């Protein structure tokens, strides 16, 4: 079972003459532990794709499934529950709630789920430790660098055993070295079995992906397909 399946998805904003086709018949599958990069020019539908995948928006037509669950059948409350349990978001910047500390930002999905403060805090600290920020648990976002904030966002995206990370230009506001660190973290999460859909403009960061999907005018114009197994390269098969 794939972590994410989009099948012939259309998304049309507006009506009549003002209608805008953000996505046209898009089909994408992301397997567990797979890192898929999405590239394309502005207005190609990358952010719409992430919004649909996370249940922040609904498809006009087609099917969107997360861990086999059809999002179109879910109520807003069930969608919210799905985001708390299975989907984590990482945005380009302004990822963190400024009035919450790093640990509180990370534990937010758990607390929204009704988890008590202490266990939520323990899970958040563990997630922060995984991204190397255990010592910054009680800092407010304003007291952290951009790279640290992105790492906290990744910790929040994975806390509570999520199966899908949706990252929208997570390195866009970072210098190249910090961007590399963030990509390495995402890659590590994939190695741990988390599927990641990464929107990026940067080919160097897209190179970290197992597969790259190119979008134009809401449709996939190219898909590099599954990365070949290493032994096949050796054998030339």
């Amino acid at each position, binding site marked *: 079972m794939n972590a994410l399946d989009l099948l012939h998805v259309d998304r049309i904003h507006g009506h009549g003459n003002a209608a805008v086709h953000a996505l046209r018949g898009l089909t994408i599958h992301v397997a567990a532990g797979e890192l898929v990069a999405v590239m394309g020019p502005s207005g190609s539908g990358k952010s719409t794709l992430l919004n649909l995948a996370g249940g922040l928006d609904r498809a006009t037509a087609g099917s969107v499934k997360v861990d086999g669950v059809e999002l179109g059948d879910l109520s807003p409350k069930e969608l919210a529950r799905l*985001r708390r349990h299975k989907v984590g978001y990482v945005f380009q910047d302004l990822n963190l709630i400024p009035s919450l500390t790093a640990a509180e930002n990370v534990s937010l999905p758990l607390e929204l789920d009704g988890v008590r403060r202490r266990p939520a805090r323990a899970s958040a600290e563990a997630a922060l430790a995984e991204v190397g920020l255990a010592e910054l648990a009680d800092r407010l976002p304003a007291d952290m660098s951009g790279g640290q904030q992105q790492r906290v966002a990744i910790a929040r995206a994975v806390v509570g055993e999520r199966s899908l990370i949706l990252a929208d230009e997570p390195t866009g506001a970072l210098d190249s070295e910090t961007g590399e660190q963030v990509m390495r973290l995402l890659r590590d999460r994939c190695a741990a079995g988390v599927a990641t859909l990464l929107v990026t403009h940067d080919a160097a960061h897209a190179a970290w992906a197992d597969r790259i999907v190119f979008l134009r005018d809401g449709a996939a114009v190219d898909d590099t397909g599954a990365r070949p197994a290493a032994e096949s390269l050796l054998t030339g098969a």
Partner: protein
Amino acid sequence: MARLARWRPALRMAWRDLVQHPLRTVVVTVLVALPVAVAVVVSTVTATTDYYSPNTTARFLGAADAALEVTPHPRVRVRTMDRGRYVEWSAPPRAQDVERDATGVDVAALLPEGSRVTRIGDVTVPLAIGGRLAADVLDLDDPLTRGLATLESGRAPASEDEVAVSRLLADELGLVDDGTLADDAALRTTRGDLAVVGVLEPDPDRFSDSSPLVLAPVRLDGRTDALPSVRYLVDLPELTSKESRALQAELADHGISAQLRDATAHPDAWGLEQPLPSPVDPAAVATGALVIGLGLVEVLVLVGSAFAVGARRQSRTLGLVMASGGTPSDVRRTVLAQGVWIGVGAAVLGTGAGLLALLVGRGPIASLAGQRLQDYSFSVGTLVAVALLGVASAVAAAAIPAWGVGRMTASESLDGHIAAGSRRRRGGRLRGPSLALMTTGVVGLVLSGWWISRAFAPDVASPSTMPVVAGALSALVLLVGVVLATPFAVDLLGARTDRGWLPWRLAVRDVARHRGRTTAAVLGIGIVVTGAVFAGFGVSANAALQEVDEPLVPSGTAELYLSPGQLRDPETLARVRTAAAEIVGADGIVVAQEARLGRRPVGDHRGGTYQIVDDEFLEAMGLPDSAQRDLADGKALVVGPSSLREGQVRIVAGPRRDRVLDERIPAVRVRPGFLAMPSSVWISPETAAGLGLRGAPTSAFLHADHELDRESLDRLAFYGIYADGDEPQGPVDPRLVLGGAGGVLLATCLVVGMIVALSASEGRGDAATLAAVGAPPWTRRATSAGQALAIGCLGAGLGLLLGSAGGASLLQLVGTPGTPVPWAGLAVVVVGVPLLSTAVGWLVTPTRLSLTRRTG
């Protein structure tokens, strides 16, 4: 439990957000706290000054458990009335003829063991200057008298020739020098000087301050002649209500009337529990609900606008909450939590401020309440209810923006903007109902006004309050209709914006585009303008009533309150005349004498009395020369038309079947233009002598060539000369009306300023865009001022409509002659409010604005 746990992050975020924006937090908290503080003060003062409150009890019982009156009769019947406030005694027939020396009764022996008594009394002190001052006889050092009078400085009078005087009297008599009582301070009486040894706290109740002296109990020793009864205050041991009632009965069997505190505290146990007169006045409730409702809407609009601004600025945060798995309820909680914190803070702050105001402002509050405030009657239940109302109002104010953000999509929130005008069609369904409600409200107001004028006609003995209720309900319906219709007025304003000056075009389009916030701002301004317009109608109605009001006595005169003995004593009259001339510059005193035949009063067979007056009286009372000529011609002057028949008036004495006098004398009608001595017939001393009548002085009037105002009369009262003059008889004290109007004006300026500033702060993003495309600061300011002008015009128009409707009802209610519309005040509002809001809009728009402000 899980549901409560989901509040935790919301409360945490809200708290930190409030801490990060201290100015906004303080302003909003104070806005909510103010009505809480006012409610705390008003509810406490109302409970304290309530007729049945312990504070009122202290005014006649002091700190004692009982007040006793030892009657001259050996046995009395005692009846406790009015929830223990009054005790009436009467002697049974067999005991009526038996009298005793009340001072000889050993009261202490009749009381339970452990009781303590202190003697009290009241006397009058004849001043050398001619008046008589009422005085309490109390031991001020005795804790039982606490509440009856309180020493401010000096000491309690201890001997017969010592006295304590009220501070006002001490000031008037010049007995205090630099705040210290002069060594030789003395009160000159006809029986020698009384040394002034203490100064009493002033009593805000003017009636009570007319007893401004306290004498020592020793003054009463040995006096039995003028004191048929002897009074005591008693400190009793702990008694149950049953025991207290038994004690009252036992004392009555010894000729002692006892008023017990227990009866006031437990009227039910005494069988005195009775429904209070008009416990719920529906008119007052309806009017109060309307005023409170308007006030609440105002707070909701102001505080709600502030929350709305905060919520829009938090848009990204709310988007992140949704992206982290937050439901719309979680998003709503995030905004509502701010309301909870603000509400709790405001409840604590408001309650604390209210209690502090009660503590610090005891003097001014007592003065306003017109009562000495001994101990406040705090009702914990009321205070908690008021505090909860504060919390609820803040949460309610946050509810509207919370509802709005809960409907936002995550994408909208994450993008950091809220689509404006996207839901405008949704409100279209309310156009019809809003117009129907407005029409119903206006028709209801007109009809209830007509009903009120009928119900409150002079010939209706007990007018029904239902028309007032109907009027208030109609006003409420009109208000709801106007609230729902306001967005359409905003739409109409924005409909024709395709031409005109650029800043104005932009301003009007923005006002229409941001219909929600414009409606809130218009309502906020509209409500204060409603208050201002209504106050204007109140002032003009008061002025109109005063113009047609008939005074008690003519200007420049005052009716003296002198006892028959004083009126008969030429020496006393001469002293009062001299004193009044010295104190207030009075010209003299004229006396009206009731005509009598022997000892029989004479009348006009319709209940009217005959008064013997002279030319000096007529002149002093401002009657024309023709009246003096008629009087000299032997004619009677008839006040009121009923006695006059065919140019004659009848004069009779004795019972109907055995008249000792029955004559008719020529008469003319006079209209003196004042209310004193109504239904009377005036004759000259010569006419009276011709009929064999003599005069018994009944009324005396001071007259002067200048107005004898309240201040002059109060000064006379300090010397024991009590008089009443021509005070305004309008329904409302004009000072109160003007003070209220000033307050409304100040509130209008503050509210308009805040609302326009809040509205302008939301338009900063658009202003920054203008700056980015090269618009000079002047254009940006003009656009902002244009928006404020549009909001101000709509708000002023709305307030004018609602205030005029309420004002018209008020005019009908109080029955003013004509229709005194406060045109000048209305013009000031119509022009002033839009100008004020324009100025604020201009001033709060910064000249320097970077493009980054577009992100808010």
